[in-house]
C-alpha cells in the first residue's frame, strides 16, 4: 500500500487537523474533534444544515462546509458512519433556534446514528428534520427507491438545501427543497480499480484489468454488472442508459450534470467523459443548465467516475445558482 499516512488509526484525526489548519477562513473546530462547523455557525435566523458520513470521500463531507452551504459535519472513520454523538454535536453546533435539517446519505449506519442523534437533540428542544439521499440508481430497483444509496447527488441536495436556508426559509421549506432536489436527482458510478482502507492494508475487492464495474458504490460495493473496459464515450452512454429512464428525464428538460472522479482518475479524463454526456443529452433535446466536473465525491484512490443528473425547474435553478463559499464549491 503506497500511501501518505502515519498510524492508520489516527488518519482521520490528523486529516481533520490539517484540514482545519488550512481552511481556518471557512471552517472551525468544535468541542468534538469529529465535528467541524462553518466559522459563523450557528448563523442567526437561519435553519442549520448538517450532514455527516464516513471519511475517505474528500472533499465530501467537510469540504462542503461554508457560507450558504453546510453549517456542521459529523466525521466518521474511513467508510464508516460517524457516531450518534457526533451527529448530535453537529446538530447542536448548527442550531440557531430555527431548527436543523440533517441532509445525509442512505446507509444503515448513518440512518441509525442520525436516528439516535435526532432523538437526543429533540430532548434538548431542537427541531430536527432530515432528508435521506438515495440517488444511486443501480443500488436498488425503482420500486424500492427507499433502499437506494446516496452518492454524489448529495452535493446537489446540500447546495439546494443550503441556498434555501440562506434565503431565510423555515425548516419545512428547507426540507421540502432538499427533498425535491434529491427526488429529481439520479446517479451512477463506474469503478475501474479497487481502493484500500489504510487500516485494512489491502484492497477489499478486485477489478480485473480489462474489466470495469458498472454501478459500483462509493465504498466499492459491487455494481450491477462487470463489463469489459470500454471507451469513455461508451461509458457515458451506459451511464445515461441506466439513469435517464429512471426519473425519467425527457426531451425539453433542463438538467444539472455533475461528473466526479472516484479519486485516482486523471481529471482530464473526466472532461472527456463529460463531453460525451453533454453530446448525448443535446441529441435528446435536454439542456445542461450547469455542469460540475472534478473530484467532488471520491472513494479514496479508486479509479472511476460517477455521473449525477438533476432535473431542474426554475426554483431549483435559482437555488443551484445561488452563491456558495465552501472549500470544494465556490460560486459567486
Amino acid at each position, binding site marked *: 500500500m503506497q500511501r501518505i499516512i502515519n498510524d492508520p*488509526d489516527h488518519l482521520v484525526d490528523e486529516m481533520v487537523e490539517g484540514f482545519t489548519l488550512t481552511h481556518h477562513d471557512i471552517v472551525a473546530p468544535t468541542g468534538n474533534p469529529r465535528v467541524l462547523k462553518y466559522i459563523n455557525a450557528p448563523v442567526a435566523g437561519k435553519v442549520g444544515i448538517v450532514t455527516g458520513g*464516513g471519511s475517505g470521500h474528500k472533499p465530501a463531507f467537510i469540504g462542503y462546509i461554508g457560507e450558504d452551504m453546510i453549517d456542521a459535519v459529523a466525521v*466518521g*472513520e*474511513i*467508510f*464508516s*458512519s*460517524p*457516531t*450518534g*454523538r*457526533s451527529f448530535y454535536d453537529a446538530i447542536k453546533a448548527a442550531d440557531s433556534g430555527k431548527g436543523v435539517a440533517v441532509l445525509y446519505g442512505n*446507509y*444503515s*449506519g448513518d*440512518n*441509525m*446514528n442520525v*436516528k*439516535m442523534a435526532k432523538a437526543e437533540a429533540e430532548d434538548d428542544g431542537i427541531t430536527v428534520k432530515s432528508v435521506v439521499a438515495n440517488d444511486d440508481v443501480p*443500488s*436498488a430497483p425503482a420500486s*424500492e427507491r427507499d*433502499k*437506494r*444509496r446516496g452518492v454524489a447527488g448529495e452535493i446537489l441536495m446540500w447546495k439546494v438545501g443550503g441556498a434555501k436556508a440562506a434565503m431565510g426559509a423555515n425548516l419545512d421549506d428547507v426540507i421540502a427543497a432538499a427533498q425535491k432536489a434529491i427526488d429529481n436527482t439520479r446517479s451512477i458510478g463506474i469503478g475501474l480499480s479497487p481502493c484500500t*482502507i489504510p*487500516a*485494512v492494508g489491502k484492497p*477489499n*475487492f478486485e477489478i480485473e484489468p480489462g474489466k470495469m464495474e458498472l454501478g459500483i*458504490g462509493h*465504498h*466499492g*460495493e*459491487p455494481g450491477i454488472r462487470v463489463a469489459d473496459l470500454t471507451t469513455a464515450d461508451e461509458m457515458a452512454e451506459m451511464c445515461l442508459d441506466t439513469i435517464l429512464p429512471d426519473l425519467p428525464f425527457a426531451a425539453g428538460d433542463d438538467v444539472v450534470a455533475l461528473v466526479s472522479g472516484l479519486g485516482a482518475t486523471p481529471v482530464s479524463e473526466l472532461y472527456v467523459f463529460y463531453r460525451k454526456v453533454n453530446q448525448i443529452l443535446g441529441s435528446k433535446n435536454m439542456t445542461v443548465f450547469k455542469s460540475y466536473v472534478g473530484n467532488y465525491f471520491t472513494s479514496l484512490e479508486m479509479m472511476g467516475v460517477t455521473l449525477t443528473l438533476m432535473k431542474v425547474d426554475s426554483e431549483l435553478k435559482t437555488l443551484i445558482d445561488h452563491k456558495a463559499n465552501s472549500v470544494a464549491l465556490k460560486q459567486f
Partner: protein
Amino acid sequence: MEYFLNSEGSVVVRDIINEIRSNRDYLGEIDGAIGDGDHGINMNKGFSMAGERINQSHSFSEAAKTLGNVLMMEIGGSMGPLYGTLFKRFFRETKDHDRITAEIVLKMLESALDGVKEIGGADVGDKTMIDTLAPAVSAMRAATISHCSFRDALMKSLEAGREGRDSTKDMVARIGRSARLGERSRGVLDAGAVSCCIIMESMTESIPAILRND
C-alpha cells in the same frame, strides 16, 4: 440453581473483547467479500477501547454497560449502534441481579434481539447479525423451558446461532452496505452474523467456567 455471580462476570465480557480482537482480520476479509471490508477494524477498535476501561473488579453488568456505551457513542458505523444496543440491553436486564441464571441470560438475549431489530429495522432472512442472534435466542428459550442445564442451554443456543450464521451464506442481503447486490451477495457469509456468532461462542466458553450451583 445454576448461576454465575454478576460481580465475577466481567471475565465474560473481557473474553468477548479478546475474541473479537483476535478475529479482526478474519472479519475484515468476510466483510470485504460483499461489504466494504471494515467490519474487523470497526469491531476491533470499539471493543479494544472498551477493553481498556474494563477490569476484573467490574461486574458483568458494569462491563456490559461500559462496552455498550463505548460502542454506542464512540464507534459509529453500523456496529456502534447495533452492538451498542446489544450490550446496553445486556446491562439493562442484568443490573438488578447478583446472580445471573440461564433465565436471566435468556431475557437479556431476548431484549438484545428486540433492541437490535428496533434500531436497525432488519429481520431474520436479511443476511445480518440477526440471523445468528434470533435462532440463538429461540434455542435458548426452548432449552430454558425444557430445563436444560445452563451449560447445555448455552450449547444449544450456540449451535442454533452457528446454523443461523451459516444460513446467511445462501441468503441475498437485504440490508446494510452489502444489500441490493441481488444474487451477487449470495455464497458468502455475512460479516455481522459471523461476529455475533463469535460473541456467542465466547460466552459459551466463559460462562460455564464460572458457574456456581447452590
